[in-house]
């Protein structure tokens, strides 16, 4: 049973479900975007902890440092680019939310659907 030993992974999974809960159950669009961000963060946490090595040091070459002691640099660089993409997603989602609010005066999903039906019907 590795669940206790892998509790970093487990925390990441729980965070993912918290974010998914926010995305599915919350009616406010801003809270949904926060949920997406929580999910992204959980994935980052998961990948970074996969790259961990026991007693590892930062992957920067210094005189007299054995490269086999360094942590895995690959997840770190993937996450670095991933964070920037996450910021881009958030920026785009928030700007669409701003547009929705200017158009309808609300960020509540149910009310938005109602307004849309009224406009269509």
């Amino acid at each position, binding site marked *: 049973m590795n669940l206790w030993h892998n509790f970093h992974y487990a925390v990441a999974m729980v965070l993912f479900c918290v974010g998914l809960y926010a995305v599915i159950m919350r009616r406010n669009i801003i809270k949904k975007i926060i949920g997406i961000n929580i999910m992204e963060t959980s994935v980052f946490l998961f990948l970074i902890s996969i790259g961990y090595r*026991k007693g590892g040091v930062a992957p*920067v070459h210094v005189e007299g440092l054995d490269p086999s002691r360094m942590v895995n640099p690959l997840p770190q660089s993937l996450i670095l680019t991933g964070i920037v993409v996450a910021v881009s997603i958030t920026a785009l989602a928030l700007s669409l939310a701003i547009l929705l609010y200017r158009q309808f005066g609300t960020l509540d999903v149910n009310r938005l659907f109602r307004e849309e039906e009224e406009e269509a019907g």
Partner: protein
Amino acid sequence: MKRLVSLLFIGALALLLLYVVSKMPPMGEPTNPTMTHVVPRYLEKSEGEAHARNVVTGVIINYRGFDTLGEVTVIYCALAAVLAVLGREKRGRIRDYVELSGIPSSVIVRTMVALVVPFIVLFSLYVILHGEMSPGGGFQGGAVIGASMIIFTTVFGLHLSSVKVPLKVRAALEGSAVITFFLVGIAGILGGGNFLAYAWPRVSQSLQPALVTWLTVLVEVGIGLGGAMVFVSILFAMVREEGADEPLA
């Protein structure tokens, strides 16, 4: 009913994920599959091949250059999409909620921000320029500049910060990440190699390490400035109030 089904779905997903986690190899063991394939090569040879002491920078700029080029394009596209949705501010006086609210922030906050922001920008330049040899790099430094501008804008308002970072500067630098990276890739072709390959048959072997290091720093600076300006432009597009453009009389 719908809520119940959603909750059940999330609970089942959580149980499934935790089950998978409990079957994964223990964290931190050097024999894990993630540590064995390509990573030893990155760790052992990056100093000789990528000429970057920070392995993460070597992986981003050198080994996975294509990946990063695409990703830099993604943030540029995000900026384009945000501007397409919200519109770029026009020249002249622009206002946001800070100025429209009529309640100035306290003297302490204004003084502290005015004192601290220059140092934050200085630190971000350090992070960008030292990305080759210490933890840091273009993305991180750009994010730090963007964060400093967020603080500045929330306290002093959009008008003042758009005077500090004028539209001309931003429009010129927003694409610098993509352009620098692309030009460095072209330099690989001109040197007789492949696109984005940092090994040139036409350049003498003794020159190559220094050249690769300086090109890495150049790409980092491009990514840093470009990313920072993209963040600042997105921020300005977001905090601008609708109909708040006033032509400068």
